């Protein structure tokens, strides 16, 4: 991974802001979709696509690419917008989100957008698919290859039982090139996670499943990069990064308000949001 300079951080901050503006624009146009999660994860997506991932937007199916699996598919506006800003899609295509015939389905579907790693939306399924990819790669090479496998998850989806089955298998198989990043924004569709179904003590839960765990500020570029670097250096264990994020980050009237989990801004709200983002 390249050196993280101050200039690069400033450049990525601007990129993340542009991605947030794209997210707002596409949701206003779509008239439905999820707002809080994509805004909250925009910084992590930016770091992954513009600093961490070994990938090639001009050759999306490059065999040796790192794999990034979005488990909580409902935050796909962040995925689509970041991929567009990386060169996988034209920016204009973002406006087709959720429309009939669009490649940008309401939840990602690989039959429509062939170069995403999997379809997702129903929660709790991404981690085990990432584990499967890791295992297949290890089987092919007889050892861990240079590829890294990333799975992005929401905190709410940790309530799905399938996740805990997957956690057991990853540590059993000592998948050291697997890194999970949890969007710990504390909200889910009907309220705060700790009211709906408490996840804490979250760090200790993963540790007890024999994972390497670190907790970071999910909006601090330096911390995101360092944590991923450290996670990759861990031997014989999978890693999880609990990224504390602010749902709706960057738009004052959306931040930490679970009501923005599953609804889009109106045209007027979108304009206000974009004005705010442009000031940052």
């Amino acid at each position, binding site marked *: 991974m390249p050196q993280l300079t101050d200039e690069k951080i400033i450049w990525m901050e601007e990129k993340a802001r542009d991605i947030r503006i794209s997210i707002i624009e596409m949701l206003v146009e779509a008239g439905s979709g999820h707002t809080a999660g994509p805004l909250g994860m925009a910084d992590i997506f930016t770091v992954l696509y513009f600093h961490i991932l070994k990938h090639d937007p001009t050759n999306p199916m490059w065999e040796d690419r790192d794999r990034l699996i979005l488990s909580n598919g409902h935050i796909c506006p962040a995925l689509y917008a970041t991929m567009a800003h990386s060169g996988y899609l034209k920016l204009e295509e973002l406006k087709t989100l959720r429309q009939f015939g669009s490649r940008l389905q309401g939840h990602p*579907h*690989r*039959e429509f957008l062939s170069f995403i*790693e*999997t*379809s*997702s*939306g*129903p929660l709790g*399924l991404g981690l*085990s*698919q*990432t*584990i*499967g*990819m*890791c*295992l*297949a*790669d290890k*089987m*092919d090479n007889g050892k861990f290859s240079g590829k890294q496998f990333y799975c992005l998850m929401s905190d709410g989806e940790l309530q799905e*039982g*399938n996740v805990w*089955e*997957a956690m*057991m*298998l990853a540590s059993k*198989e000592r998948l050291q090139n697997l890194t999970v990043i949890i969007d710990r924004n504390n909200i889910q569709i009907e309220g705060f996670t700790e009211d709906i179904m408490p996840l804490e003590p979250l760090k200790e839960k993963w540790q007890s499943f024999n994972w390497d765990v670190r907790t970071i500020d999910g909006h601090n570029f330096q911390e995101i990069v360092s944590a991923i670097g450290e996670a990759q250096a861990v031997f014989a264990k999978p890693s999880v990064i609990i990224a504390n994020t602010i749902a709706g980050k960057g738009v004052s009237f959306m931040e930490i308000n679970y009501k923005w989990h599953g609804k889009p801004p109106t045209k007027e709200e979108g304009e206000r949001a974009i004005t705010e983002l442009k000031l940052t």
Partner: protein
Amino acid sequence: MLNNELKLNTKLFNEDVEQIPIRQGFGEGLVIAGDENKNVIGLCADLNESTKMNLFAEKYPERFIQVGVAEQNLATVASGMAAMGKIPFISSYAMFSPGRNWEQIRTTIAYNDRPVKIIGSHAGISVGPDGGTHQAIEDIAIMRVLPNMIVLSPCDAIEAKKATIATAKIDKPVYIRLLREKTPIITTEETPFEIGKAKVFFAPPMKAQVGIIATGALVYNAILAAQRFAQKGISVKVLNIASIRPLDFEAIINLAKESGALVSVEEHQIVGGLGSAIAEVLVQNYPVPMELIGVHDKFGQSGTPEELIEHYGMSVSHIERAVEKVIERKN
């Protein structure tokens, strides 16, 4: 009156007809598929020996993954492995895979169109003493409704072996339904097998008055029933359906046209299974009177396979009565 062209087991009507569990055929077939292609791999949810995946796991331990009692993980991990070019076979009891993990199969295997092969062993009511919790009689219904999915239900161990080998060669998701108990060997190594094709196994030399369309081990009961009618001078043909999806429309319609009356036979709920699939074909193409043999809106219970097949109405005499009834309806 077995169809000679198909080179079926000529000792089928003997008292001591050879009997082998259908799942055994899968186990042997998977080893052959594994010999032929190094990308064939196995995953199991703690039922390796029961599902006969142990034959593969012992020969290719480096290509086998034990996920523990976690069928949801079984399906989703396999989807990820298929994304990297593997041809994963996943095995458990049908009640748990595809029973418990249906949504995982829908989203990550069928919707993604990943070539994972789902092996549901111990299907049907004949799993016996374990009781109703373990008797999957809904699996055909929940799998044949999925786009992209191929659904196979072999009639004996030899057909199961061929189905397994054929399945490894197609880039599609597949469900194969297996039974636990020893059942009669109906086919031979020489009998042709093709996904999507149904074959007439039993055909008296005159025009059929009734066609029986059967799947799984009950094809044997269907043939015995047809044989009894043949001895009474009544012509009943038996069509074996190993491929429930894709379904051989042409063979079904031809049999309906020839006989004018059909009976479906399956070890499954009559709702949503083979009988329903045939009825869907008939109403849209060539409606004829039809009777459905299978479990009628009930859960199973403990008992011997024979007791349960009798109690739930799938014995040879039940099939005979259904044939008589459908002849009456036709006339």
